[in-house]
């Protein structure tokens, strides 16, 4: 029987089969609460994973397409060398645009370290030239050689040195998010298995009566499986909604913001958490089914 037919059969249910198992028991509350808690945590893990992915993409893309040329020269040569660098860049294939940072922009970059009102003109600050590449990029080694010839004080920094660890860190953060989701799913499966085993043990007499009147294992198992699947899905739905609300009231994600302010979902990513109740239901379906059949096989 296909998975789709099983799930469909499960959702349609069997009113009488459902009724053979008493609804009382702590396993009801346990399953609902744990599923809700796990889904709540899963929403955050998912948000972290997606935010880390966005961050990695942004850093990777932004840093990969930009580079900096630092010109260190005596004050008298600074202006000519800057013009020489810009001229070289203008003639370099793969360079989309290039511009020298203004004094105000350089001051802004140094402000976090030196505070406001920095007398830039009194300090031997190198001039920075921002280079934006085309999608094809430029030949870094060729550019370095030409810069050495035309402007000896110019040093090309293509950001490779510090881009790679940043992107790696963001990628690992994204992977940690997915691992967290897998662990949450495994914990949910373990919890549902324990709750199902507890319910099966508590209802051993019911199972015995059912077997003696000719109920097949699949009929008995279905009553437990459906109940735990729906409980897990309902609990997860509640947890997901709460998690999404919690994420929504966090400070808004901004492209240029720091990581923490970017934790959340953007656009269609808000649809991702909606699969959590479905995943919780599927996890509970398999966990209960395995537990039920194992238990029934052990019984005479």
């Amino acid at each position, binding site marked *: 029987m296909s998975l789709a037919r099983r799930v469909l059969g499960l959702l349609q249910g069997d009113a009488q089969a459902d009724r053979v198992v008493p609804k009382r028991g702590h396993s009801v509350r346990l399953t609902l609460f744990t599923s809700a808690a796990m889904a709540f945590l899963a929403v955050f893990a998912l948000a972290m994973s997606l935010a880390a992915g966005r961050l990695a993409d942004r850093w990777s893309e932004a840093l990969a397409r930009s580079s900096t040329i630092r010109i260190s020269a005596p004050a008298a040569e600074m202006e000519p060398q800057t013009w020489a660098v810009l001229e070289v860049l203008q003639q370099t294939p793969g360079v989309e645009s290039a511009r020298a940072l203004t004094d105000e922009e350089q001051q802004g970059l140094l402000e976090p370290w030196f505070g406001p009102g920095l007398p830039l003109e009194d300090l031997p600050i190198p001039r920075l030239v921002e280079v934006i590449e085309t999608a094809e990029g430029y030949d870094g080694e060729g550019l370095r050689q030409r810069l050495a010839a035309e402007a000896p004080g110019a040093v090309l920094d293509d950001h490779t040195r510090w881009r790679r660890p940043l992107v790696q860190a963001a990628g690992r953060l994204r992977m940690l998010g997915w691992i967290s989701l897998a662990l949450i799913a495994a914990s949910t499966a373990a919890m549902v298995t324990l709750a199902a085993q507890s319910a099966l043990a508590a209802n051993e007499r*019911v199972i015995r009566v059912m077997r003696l*009147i*000719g*109920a097949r294992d699949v009929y008995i198992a279905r009553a437990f499986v459906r109940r735990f699947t729906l409980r897990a899905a309902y609990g997860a739905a509640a947890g997901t909604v709460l998690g999404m609300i919690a994420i929504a009231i966090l400070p808004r994600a901004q492209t240029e913001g720091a990581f923490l302010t970017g934790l959340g979902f953007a656009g269609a990513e808000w649809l991702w958490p909606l699969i959590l109740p479905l995943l919780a239901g599927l996890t509970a379906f398999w966990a209960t089914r395995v537990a039920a059949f194992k238990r029934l096989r052990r019984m005479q």
Partner: protein
Amino acid sequence: MTEAAFGRGRAVIELKDAGYGYGGGTLLEEMNLRLTPGSFHFLTGPSGAGKTTLLKLCYADLTPTSGEVTLFDQPSHQMSRDDLAHARQRMGVVHQNCEFLDHLPITENVALPLTVSRRGGPGEDANLADLLGWVGLAGRKNALPPELSGGERQRAALARAVITDPDVILADEPTGNIDWEMSLRLLQLLVELNRMGKTILVATHDLSLIRAAKAQVSARVLRIAKGRLQLAGADL
């Protein structure tokens, strides 16, 4: 003399040298029994002789420790769990302790075998009401099993055993907790079912019930003594 000598044709349930023991001891040994379609058997013997154990072997609630039990021509030890479930759907069993699902009203408990075998239909509600009426439980149909007396539980168990129109009915002390009048009514139902071709095996220590039955139907009476099955004598 064993019952094997009396069996003719294909058996619905057959015990071939079946024995059962536990804890190193032997309760039943070399049981040979053929329940042919339409036969009526009583099983008697003193308390603790093994009547209930023999019935449990007949519906495969227990597995023989020696010999073989066949249900509908299939050795029970070779049956899959689904085969066993299907075989039990063809049997109506009245257990001595009359176990029910305590959280369901008696009407749902009685109808449970129909649900399990997916044989419920549009006319089943009327049949169910008739059956409950016949066993005297029409006014108690919404009662929960713990609210019923011992006799009421036994009548409900019989109703549950026959509701699917099974091929064979196995009853373990079905009149143990009911008065003589109700015992005769239950006996009458069993006799009628037997006349309709059902195979009946009743374990009882109530000899007067057996005498009443023998006046109406050709029933064979077996006795368990010292772990073996014997044909009861004319003392009945």
